[in-house]
């Protein structure tokens, strides 16, 4: 029988203000999920060990935590797989990142639910309800298929670098739900949603680190949803905010010069704030750290244009 050492993050607010780590030894069969392992520790070794859980079959999204630093659903993760991946008999178990621990592996998800609510995660149809249901063609539903698989486990927030940097960033799962409704043919609020989602701390604040895509246990690909919401903003003409201007500056720069002109990117993105950065820009120029403000054209500009056209037509 395999033996595993579970090195668990402990935080018992009733007895101590300081968190600590505790190693548990567990003998078990070959098939054992991380959640089973933790529940066995709870039953057999320490009744105070706490983890939020419910369905045990990766549909309720309660038991997200970290196994060796990666956010996973504990019920979906085989202990033996983790050991094999890290070539070690010890598995470090931690609560999700970016949230305050309440007790052991249980974190405070209130900020997560606030963000979720802020995107109006429900259908807002137009006019009075029809006599029967609103029929949606299969193809239209398939566009939002991935996003509608989200189970709100918050694993993406645990991994989100933008959320770490800005606690007010609306974040991956909430935007996945945003697209789930902005992309729904029955929804009447596409433009309003585009405005709501591209404000401060909105879609353009994502750093594109892709961790949400990588760690989402249900394959929702929240980063892709955020990208699609950028597309919705452009399609709805919501392009005056800094984020959209920034994206537009990239486009114009590529179309006219064939490569990114970083010196022009800043004033285009933020024409009011940019002059304040002028001394800094001059200093960078003097040290050869900034490209020339005079637009540069690459020789094969036509090829770039053809590529851009191709991409536009494909999407």
């Amino acid at each position, binding site marked *: 029988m395999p033996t595993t050492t579970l090195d668990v993050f402990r935080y018992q607010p009733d007895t101590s203000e300081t968190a600590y780590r505790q190693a548990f030894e567990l003998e078990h069969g070959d098939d054992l999920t991380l959640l089973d392992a933790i529940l066995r520790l709870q039953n057999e070794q320490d*009744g105070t060990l706490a983890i939020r859980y419910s369905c045990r079959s990766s549909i309720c999204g309660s038991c997200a935590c970290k196994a060796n630093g990666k956010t996973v659903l504990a019920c979906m993760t085989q202990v033996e797989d983790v050991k094999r991946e890290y070539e070690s008999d010890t598995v470090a178990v931690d609560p999700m990142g970016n949230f305050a621990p309440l007790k052991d592996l249980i974190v405070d998800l209130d900020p997560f639910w606030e963000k979720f609510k802020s995107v109006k995660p429900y259908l807002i149809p137009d006019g009075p309800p029809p006599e029967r249901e609103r029929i949606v063609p299969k193809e239209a539903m398939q566009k939002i298929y991935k996003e509608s698989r989200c189970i709100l486990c918050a694993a993406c927030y645990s991994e989100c670098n933008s959320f770490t940097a800005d606690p007010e960033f609306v974040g991956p799962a909430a935007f996945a739900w945003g697209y789930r409704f902005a992309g729904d043919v029955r929804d009447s609020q596409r433009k309003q949603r585009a405005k709501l989602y591209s404000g401060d701390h909105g879609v353009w604040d994502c750093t594109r680190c892709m961790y949400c895509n990588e760690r989402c246990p249900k394959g929702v690909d929240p980063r892709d949803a955020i990208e699609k919401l950028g597309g919705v903003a452009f399609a709805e003409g919501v392009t005056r905010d800094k984020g959209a201007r920034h994206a537009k500056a990239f486009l114009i720069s590529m179309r006219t010069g064939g490569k990114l002109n970083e010196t022009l990117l800043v004033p285009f993105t933020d024409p009011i704030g940019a002059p304040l950065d002028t001394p800094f820009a001059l200093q960078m120029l003097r040290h050869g750290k900034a490209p020339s403000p005079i637009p540069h054209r690459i020789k094969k500009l036509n090829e770039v244009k053809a590529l851009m056209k191709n991409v536009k037509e494909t999407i």
Partner: protein
Amino acid sequence: MQEKVGVFRTGSELSEAQATVERLREKYKSVVVTDKGRTFNQSLIHTIETGYLLDLALTMVTGAVERTESRGAHSRLDYTERDDENWIKHTLAYLEDDQIRLDYSEVTMTKYEPQVRSY
């Protein structure tokens, strides 16, 4: 309960299960909650739930011992026949003085009267 009070059951197994549940309920009276904290005390929740489970187990097994026939998911291997003469009635169970008291009530007959299902 999994082993002895499944769909297919016999009187002797049910009596054994009944004795086990009674013993466990007795034991439960001295149960200890290991977590003494006030935050997310899952140990306390599990302990309370175990008590309810034992009450429910006793209810099930007591009713099953008495019902000397087979009906639907209650399939007695020692009474394989359905007995409409004696057993068209609901079992009612009351927990009184820490014991199950059984009572029965009549079945309201509607358009579709219960009958033997033979496929």
